[in-house]
């Protein structure tokens, strides 16, 4: 099996770019990634592109060849769609292609344009990640779904809104120095607690913002990196994916996300590590409760234990396991089809030392990314390691 390295990374600034087209956003990220890698575009053998709601937001289907064209590529291009896990899946398939020997260089990433729609229209668009018949037609919204999980968590394990507020405060603090983040500002527990309710028990500051943005990664084989003298110190040593019933009510537990557990076990096995080896993590905190569920699914905490992790200072920047040093989806922003790629971009930057928060984890060698779709009916986990 061929080893896989992250040769280059690219992001747009995440935020409100409501007039910018998807093709322009993705081209910016892709060109940055190719420049960062020092890989000529003719060497790129495939584009794996993640996008969720482009047909609704831009009335644009068939996006992959359009995005290849925008990035100056003539290779085969394929779109991957697993709701908010779209780019995670696109990256995973790139890793698999390179491992198998099928390709040496793949550009992977994603894009979402969202703020050109009204908040109401975006709410409707995001809801289609849920079961149309038995959830969406019954009034389930995306925040509503996570609110159902949050209350189920409180009932099963305890915890309260203030615990969740600490997750938001932590992630906002981490975003301050991140030049790509949508909200480079700190918030307080009081602000979070007093923000308006969206879907109780979740309030506005429990939710990630609506974001435009793109992410891109150049993955190469170890052999290619060696032959072409590419400096690519970060290796992808594990990738895993899991699925679950689409409708939340069809799952055994409403406050656990076993698809992510299965993805993590697969990725850890490949990497030859366990949860105790993880030194830094970027997890899918589309809502504050989602970070809690992610940490437990990844085996970093026992079920019922992660709710107080941020409040106890364990996952903050000076804690034993910093989580979402990028700012997370909460403060960095969540252009849904780009997020899975941006998590790998941020973890790569953290590990190779060129992230504004790299000095928080100067000796870290092993990190994980956790990317989830819908109420975690899809999950993708990657293990990244600084190569010897």
């Amino acid at each position, binding site marked *: 099996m061929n080893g896989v390295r992250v040769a280059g990374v690219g992001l747009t600034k995440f935020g409100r770019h409501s007039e910018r087209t998807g093709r322009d956003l993705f081209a910016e990220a892709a060109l940055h990634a190719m420049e960062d890698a020092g890989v000529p575009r003719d060497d790129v053998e495939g584009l794996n592109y993640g996008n969720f709601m482009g047909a609704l937001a831009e009335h644009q289907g068939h996006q992959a060849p359009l995005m290849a064209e925008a990035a100056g590529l003539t290779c085969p291009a394929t779109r991957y769609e697993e709701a908010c896990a779209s780019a995670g899946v696109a990256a995973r398939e790139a890793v698999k292609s390179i491992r198998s020997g099928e390709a040496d260089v793949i550009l992977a990433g994603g894009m979402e344009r969202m703020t050109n729609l009204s908040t109401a229209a975006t*709410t409707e668009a995001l809801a289609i990640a849920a079961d149309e018949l038995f959830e*969406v037609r019954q*009034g389930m919204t995306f925040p509503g779904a996570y609110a*159902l999980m949050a*209350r*189920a968590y409180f009932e099963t394990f305890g915890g309260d809104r203030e615990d969740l507020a600490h997750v938001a405060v932590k992630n906002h603090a981490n975003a301050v120095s991140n030049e790509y983040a949508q909200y480079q500002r700190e918030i307080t527990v009081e602000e979070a607690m007093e923000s308006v*309710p969206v879907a109780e028990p979740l309030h506005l500051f429990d939710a990630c913002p609506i974001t435009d943005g793109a992410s891109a990664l150049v993955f190469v084989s170890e052999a290619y990196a060696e032959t072409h003298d590419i400096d690519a110190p970060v290796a992808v040593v594990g990738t895993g994916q899991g699925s679950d019933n689409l409708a939340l*009510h069809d799952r055994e537990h409403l406050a656990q996300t076993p698809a992510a557990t299965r993805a993590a076990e697969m990725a850890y096995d490949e990497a030859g590590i366990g949860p105790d080896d993880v030194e830094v993590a970027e997890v899918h905190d589309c809502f504050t409760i989602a970070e809690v569920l992610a940490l437990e699914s990844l085996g970093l905490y026992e079920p019922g234990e992660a709710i107080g992790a941020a409040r106890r200072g364990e996952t903050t920047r000076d804690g034993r396991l910093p989580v979402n040093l990028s700012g997370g989806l909460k403060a960095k922003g969540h252009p849904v089809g780009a997020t899975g790629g941006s998590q790998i971009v941020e973890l790569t930057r953290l590990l190779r030392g060129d992230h504004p928060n790299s000095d928080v984890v100067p000796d870290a060698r092993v990190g994980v990314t956790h990317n989830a779709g819908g109420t975690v009916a899809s999950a993708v986990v990657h293990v990244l390691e600084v190569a010897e």
Partner: protein
Amino acid sequence: MSGDDASPRDAGYDDWLDALAAGDGYYLACENGHGSLPPRRVCPHCGSSALSEVDLPDSGNVETFTVVHVAAPSFVDDAPYVTAVVDFGDVRLTGVVRDVAPEDVTVGTAVGVDVGTKTTDGERLVVFHPR
């Protein structure tokens, strides 16, 4: 969907909703006791293809709920509303809790199930009423 000519039905789902509205609610059960909702060709939990219709119990319990303030356009005039997941034993349903103030809904509240219509557009949906 209301089932008029302009609005095509979703076979399985709309039939199930019709039965629920007539007081003949059901779910699908396999021989291993797993419940699910139609249309199904196999049990989503074990893959069994031996599915039969079983009467939905008259009453279930709220397992979790949320008060939705920010609604999609198709629910905007219904907001705020209470979305709940209700446990009926072998199967759970998601729907809107009515005839009770949101602050009086609690986990464990016993509810009956029926079909109602939305204020926003008159479309049908699953509704729960405290018993």
